């Protein structure tokens, strides 16, 4: 079974702190994604990566950066956390090949609160 794990289920940080959200998948997937989920807004794509050291902006990249140094790990970084980044963050991965065909496998999410 594909497993996508995220470093924390719940996280509380202060405004201005640098925050790292880690995601690891164990199925050798090429593609990895970071979303945030907010009530009434659904899932919005922040960044995605189709290969090691490669990244592409999603719909809402402002205030975030990412790192993919190893194939299995995709990190989301909030350079200076703000209260409007309080949200549920979901990581996902999918296999190589036709990226439109394959479903994404999701982690359990990290609920981040910025105070």
């Amino acid at each position, binding site marked *: 079974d594909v497993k996508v794990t995220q470093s924390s289920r719940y996280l509380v940080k202060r405004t201005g702190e640098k925050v790292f959200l880690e995601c690891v998948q164990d199925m050798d997937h090429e593609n990895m994604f970071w979303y945030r989920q907010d009530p009434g807004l659904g899932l919005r794509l922040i960044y*995605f990566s189709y290969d090691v050291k490669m990244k592409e902006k999603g719909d809402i990249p402002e205030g975030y950066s990412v790192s993919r140094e190893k194939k299995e790990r995709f990190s989301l970084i909030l350079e200076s956390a703000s209260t409007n980044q309080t949200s*549920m963050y979901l990581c996902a991965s999918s296999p190589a090949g036709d*990226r*439109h065909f394959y479903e*994404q496998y999701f982690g*359990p999410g990290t609920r981040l609160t910025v105070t």
Partner: protein
Amino acid sequence: AQKVTQAQTEISVVEKEDVTLDCVYETRDTTYYLFWYKQPPSGELVFLIRRNSFDEQNEISGRYSWNFQKSTSSFNFTITASQVVDSAVYFCALSAHRDDKIIFGKGTRLHILP
């Protein structure tokens, strides 16, 4: 532009009732895939089904069935004889070849009342 609309924000039904979740999509692509995901209270989205644009056959899996109609750009999901364990947020999604990413609808929160 690609778009997925799930007009029903929240639905409540009593256990054993049938319920249909609506999904309407927009795309100019002729080749695309549609998905349904389930997000239970634990938070992890779980893949339920994929349908490609060239296959309009309806699908049934146990109590779940999906109705894909290109003429109305809809991909609706029906749960028959609902159970409390079906309570979740359900997302419809579209992946089209002219776009690099999957587009999710805003989700429908389904409450099955005992």
